[in-house]
């Protein structure tokens, strides 16, 4: 195993971490603001991917051009999801929200199975197979693009959270919904926004995966679990933590796949092991302040 191979593994890991980051940042936003884990989050990734597939095959639209449009549509879908279902369980026991979002996950996943068939699909624009060589390491262009998009959107989210009225209201609701309401913030509106932003980010992740990996109606849950592992790794509710946790998971999976015998099979289990290990050792995560 020479240095070049190790560098290649590192680059691969970081690049797949970029896709994870987009998924995890959305999940952690909803958790941070609403204290709800959306089990259907990964299925919005899947929907985003199929949207990109549809836009590409039916309209010939390049996935990168379709990205803002798909984010808008998925954001709206997330808002509708929140208003029609989760809004009604606000303040009741966790079990309701778990069962409800799990139900929506099953609905989306199996609805997609009926609509889109269980065939594996990919979106193949002209740049899908392009690579650039940086210091002897092959870097696939779509994955690099995914990492760049993830980085840009995460920075944008941080700017929105820190610098705008919307962001301030989201952070206020996250800290204390009752106090926020007393300041004149519409809590349900804030939750709706948090959900819309979260699913829009999931949609963006879906667009990237449709080019980089593959599409299948059943991929959603594994994204949800991976994203949850990342979010626990980085500290629940921490956006920066989610981004770094995603890169860590990408690196660990890539090195497991490359270095362990029959590692690509074991790589599937890395997220689960990291999740349980982290909850045992440091439940507040790398960047979390409190458990």
């Amino acid at each position, binding site marked *: 195993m020479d240095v070049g191979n190790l560098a290649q593994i590192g680059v691969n890991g970081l690049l797949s971490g970029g896709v994870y980051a987009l998924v995890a940042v959305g999940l952690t936003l909803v958790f941070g603001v609403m*204290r*709800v*884990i959306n089990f259907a989050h990964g299925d919005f990734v899947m929907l985003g991917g199929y949207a990109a597939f549809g836009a590409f095959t039916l309209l010939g639209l390049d996935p990168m051009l379709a990205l803002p449009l798909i984010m808008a549509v998925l954001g709206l879908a997330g808002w509708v999801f929140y208003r029609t*279902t989760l809004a*009604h*369980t606000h303040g009741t026991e*966790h*079990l*309701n929200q*778990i*069962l*409800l979002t*799990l*139900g*929506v*996950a*099953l*609905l*989306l*996943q*199996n*609805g997609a*199975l*009926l609509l889109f068939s*269980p065939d594996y699909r990919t979106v193949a624009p002209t740049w899908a197979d392009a690579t650039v060589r940086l210091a002897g390491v092959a870097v696939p262009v779509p994955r690099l693009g995914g990492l760049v998009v993830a980085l840009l959107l995460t920075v944008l989210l941080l700017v929105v959270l820190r610098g705008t009225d919307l962001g301030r209201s989201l952070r206020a609701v996250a800290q204390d919904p009752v106090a926020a309401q007393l300041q004149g913030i519409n809590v349900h509106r804030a939750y709706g926004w948090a959900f819309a932003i979260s699913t829009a980010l999931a949609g963006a992740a879906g667009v990237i995966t449709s080019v980089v990996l593959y599409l299948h109606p059943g991929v959603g*849950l594994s994204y949800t*679990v991976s994203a*949850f*592992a990342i979010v*626990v790794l980085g500290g629940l509710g921490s956006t920066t933590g989610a981004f770094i946790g995603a890169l860590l998971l990408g690196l660990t999976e890539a090195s497991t796949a490359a270095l362990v015998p*029959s590692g690509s*099979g*074991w790589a*599937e*289990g890395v*997220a*689960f*092991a990291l*999740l*349980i290990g982290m*909850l*045992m050792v440091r*439940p507040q995560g790398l960047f979390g302040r409190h458990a």
Partner: protein
Amino acid sequence: MRVSWRWQLLGLLAVAVVGFGLLFVASLYVVHLLVSALTFAVVAISWNLLLSTGQISLGHAAFFGVGAYTAGLGYERLGLPPWLGLPLAAVAAAAVALVLGLIVMRMRGIYLAIATLAFAEGLRVVFTMLSGLTGGAAGLTMPALFGGDEVANYLFAVGLVVLALGAHLVVVNTRRGFAFNAIRQGETAARALGVNVFTEKLYAFAISAALTGVAGAFYGCYLSFIDPEIVFALSVSVEAQVLPLVGGLYTVTGPLVGALTLGFGTELLRETLGQAHLLVYGLLLVVFVLWLPRGIVGSVAAAWHRRHAHHEIQHEEQPTNADSGEREKVRS
């Protein structure tokens, strides 16, 4: 609603008698459907038992799978008699639950749910990858119980349901039932009342897992073949929650009612929708959480209670404060 232990025993007997009686009216196909409905009723009952301590598991497939593989590997690798696989499955699943319980003991709510889900999915990967021992993705042939006789298998499934209901009733009727309720309503307060929260939660985990493990072993033998995608499937963990939700969470009979209601439906759906039959489970989860959170048993009981309360008020000219308080509780 409290029911005296005599009525509870009679109820258990009635389940057994009705289960036996069905043999005389049901076709072999219906008996076959009932076997899987009853198996998942056992899983649902044990999940609901764990829930009564407030612990939400999304990973009951782990216990189901460990049970099935214990029976299968005991027969295949060690040459144990098939029937011995069932108690061994209970022990193995309980042991796994104790390990998992120690890991997740400090977690609650969402954290516990996601950790148990990750645990079950992790075991699926481990059992797939350790193909030298488990047969991996190619699966494992299971020994037949009772020479594969359909009727004997069915009667055994009825027996398992009675056992699981009995276990739940024993818990409900002893101090342990009060301890479980206290833990669900607030661990700190339960601790202050002298409940050993740690032991009680572990106990709930172990007994729930043991029952699910037996169900897994039985189901594996009934299918005569298992692989990790069957017994560690997410759909097993999902079924463990959907059945009690539809039947009635926190009730003793709810999971069985849910399993019997859905048992036939899902089999029909499996034939028409194929893999996508979980679509209906998704729909049921949403509908029941939003509009029927008490499930079938809970809603019927509440309706009966309302009528009963109404009746009493008609008889007594002046309702007392206690009465109206009771009615408030029913409505809320």
